[in-house]
């Protein structure tokens, strides 16, 4: 045991600050490097219009990935986010459409009613998953895989397989509007990020999340209600999926039943690239945001270079695996 102690001690006690900086800010430096290379290779990349575009494209994945961070920090995973995006999107849209056939009677309702309903739908999906995971001890992978299928089915049933078109301009504003030139989705992402950062780093609840993910047994013996903590993170992820679903339908102007397919993969990718450990207890929401930005910037940059989207998927795959390989090397000195 002492050899391991000494080994770890050496990295922590020694004044090897450079290593520490790379460890702490490596992901941020990688992001800057990527942006720098892209700005050299394409003069359009750093224009305000394109930056705004990248942020806009990142916002939905960013919101989902932040919710995913809470779940992964407690050793869980949420595969259902893409389907919940579609379900919350279509149900909320039915309250905000001017179409007589697709809408709820008496509609369109004010946009805040639709908004509240969308978030509640996400919350309810998350609560159901959370209950199954925390109370019935079903592995998160299985419970959320079930929800991935069930919520998608519910979306198709609800809309009869058809999209809900013609959303009211007020509702569309959360996807297309802007404040002082900043697009609404970007503002929403910023708010979600700021609140999550505060919760995870500055509050008791955040501390409990790390404790539950780091060592559930120790958390339990320290008086923490582990069941309730696990339950709550799926509600957070579900609610944020609901929000993301409305951001998506508001932007496109209609809610599609096939919306959000495979979104969970990008969200998990952002979390993993951002340095959060899938084994729980380690990670930061700042890393997740940068992870989402890296994916967004990469997609955008490759678009600008005129590289086919098929290649982008291959590169993204390599990026995810590469990021985790680096992480392993850093943490375990392989």
């Amino acid at each position, binding site marked *: *045991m*002492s*050899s*391991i*102690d*000494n*080994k*770890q*001690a*050496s*990295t*922590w*006690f*020694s004044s*090897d600050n450079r290593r520490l900086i790379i460890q702490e800010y490596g992901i941020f430096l990688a992001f800057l490097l990527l942006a720098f290379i892209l700005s050299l290779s394409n003069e359009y990349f750093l224009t305000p219009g394109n930056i705004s575009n990248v942020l806009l494209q990142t916002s939905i994945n960013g919101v989902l990935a932040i919710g995913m961070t809470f779940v992964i920090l407690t050793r869980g995973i949420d595969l259902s986010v893409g389907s919940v995006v579609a379900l919350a999107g279509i149900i909320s849209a039915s309250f905000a459409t001017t179409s007589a056939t697709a809408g709820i009677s008496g509609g369109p309702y004010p946009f805040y009613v639709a908004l509240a309903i969308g978030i509640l739908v996400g919350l309810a999906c998350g609560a159901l998953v959370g209950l199954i995971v925390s109370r019935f001890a079903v592995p998160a992978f299985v419970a959320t895989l079930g929800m991935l299928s069930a919520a998608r089915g519910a979306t198709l049933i609800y809309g009869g397989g058809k999209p809900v078109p013609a959303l009211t301009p007020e509702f569309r504003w959360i996807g297309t509007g802007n404040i002082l030139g900043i697009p609404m989705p970007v503002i929403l992402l910023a708010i979600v990020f700021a609140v999550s950062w505060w919760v995870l780093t*500055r*509050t*008791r*609840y955040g*501390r*409990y999340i*790390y*404790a539950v993910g*780091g*060592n559930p*047994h*120790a*958390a*339990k*013996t*320290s*008086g*923490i*209600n582990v069941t309730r903590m696990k339950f709550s993170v799926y509600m957070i992820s579900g609610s944020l999926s609901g929000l993301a679903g409305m951001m998506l339908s508001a932007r496109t102007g209609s809610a599609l039943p096939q919306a959000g397919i495979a979104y969970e993969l990008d969200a998990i990718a952002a979390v993993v690239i951002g340095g959060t*450990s899938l084994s729980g*207890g*380690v990670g930061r929401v700042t890393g997740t945001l940068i992870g989402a930005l890296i994916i967004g910037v990469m997609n955008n940059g490759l678009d600008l270079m005129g590289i086919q989207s098929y290649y982008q998927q291959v590169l993204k795959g390599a990026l995810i695996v590469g990021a985790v390989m680096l992480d392993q090397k850093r943490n375990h000195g392989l």
Partner: protein
Amino acid sequence: MQSLLKVEGLTKSFGGVAALRDGRFELDGGSVHALCGGNGAGKSTFLSILMGIHKRDGGKIWRRGTPVEFNSPAEALASGIAIIEQELSPVPHMTVAENIYLGREPSARFGGIDFKTMNRNAQALLDRLEFSIRANQYMMNLSVAQMQLVEIAKALSHDAEVIFMDEPTSAIGEKEAQQLFAAIARLKAEGKGVVYVSHRLSEIFQIADSYTVFRDGSYVGSGALADIDRRGLIRMIVGRELGEEYIKTNAPTDMTGFEVSNLTAPGKIEDISFAVRKGEIFGIYGLMGSGRTEIFNCLFGLDTPTTGEMRLGGQPISVSKPADAMQQGIAFVTEDRKVTGLNLSDSVRNNICLASLPEMSPAFTMRRHEEQAASRDMIAHFGIKAARDTMPVSGLSGGNQQKVVLGKWFLRKPKVLLLDEPTRGVDVGAKREIYRIICDFAADGGTVVMISSEIDEVLGMSDRILVMRGGRSAGIYAREETDAQALVHLST
């Protein structure tokens, strides 16, 4: 006579920090050799080099007079060196025979495994060693002690001549330990060399013939155990005179502290009653599985007893979850700090504050200054050695980690301290400090209930001792009226 294993001038450093400066060692056949030293003395580094996990920076190793170098555990094993590690890693869903012959199963036709031969060979080996284990049992159904015996059988199936055992008794009970010692004696009789690593000095004196002491990565001395006494050995390990091993500064008062009556949890414990006074250290002794930890789990709300009452200072209290117990001023230092005590991936500071968060932050937001101050106080109070309190707790030595767990609970200013094996895996120096902390707590009017499977510790620390046997109480004895033999007798 040529020695089985000889090591001279072994050095190894990790990232510029020397873990081993001068490792020297000599093992004769047919003997048990104790390798002693505190945490950080370099024992584990020494073992990992001989196992082929780490490469040495310098020094020489001779195996029966031939210089050797190992690049992998397989090479070490091939030259007849086997190690029974502290944390065993069996394949639980395979049988004993499959585990023994893992990676070299006898083959049958068409590339299959000849299970019949394998089981027969394994059983023959187990029988020869007089281990009462069936070769076709699943590994997961064995006790930790039995798994160790399987590991020994596995080592012998490799024709190992040198067998290292790293803290083999840290997870098994007294009776099982005696069985292990019998197995070691058998190995010795067969002419093998056993290297025994343990913090428990009484065991070393019981089974070993000779000793080697490491301190701060260097060889300090070696010799025959017959020529040294316990005090002398401690002096070599610690590097200075320590005085009495157990210093008792507390004296029980007349005030009742913590009373438990008729505690029963079916299948675990039956009708347990005791009353501990303020200022008293109350020991609980028993074998693994005798229901010791189960008592604490019931008292702390981690398990639900069917009957039982608890009184604190005369007032009845009810506990249905850990938070209730904590509210009442009960603290529980759990058995295994890595499993239930610490969040290893988090910092020293956050671990110290973990159990006190509701009190330290009534309004949801954390009060960082209070946390900082609290962790500073605890680090100073317990003499925790950490570069800074934001470093991961996993980077501390075992003794310091244990002090972090104690700090976590002392921060709550408890009235009752439940200690489950408070000094397991902790070296002699740190043990002493932990005893001091416990005594100080009791001397200040605290109530202590302490589980320990180390007889010396129970006898040295406790004012009275409850002996557990098969989930029932075998009586409560004052420390003056009992001794080691009586305790072992009562507990088995």
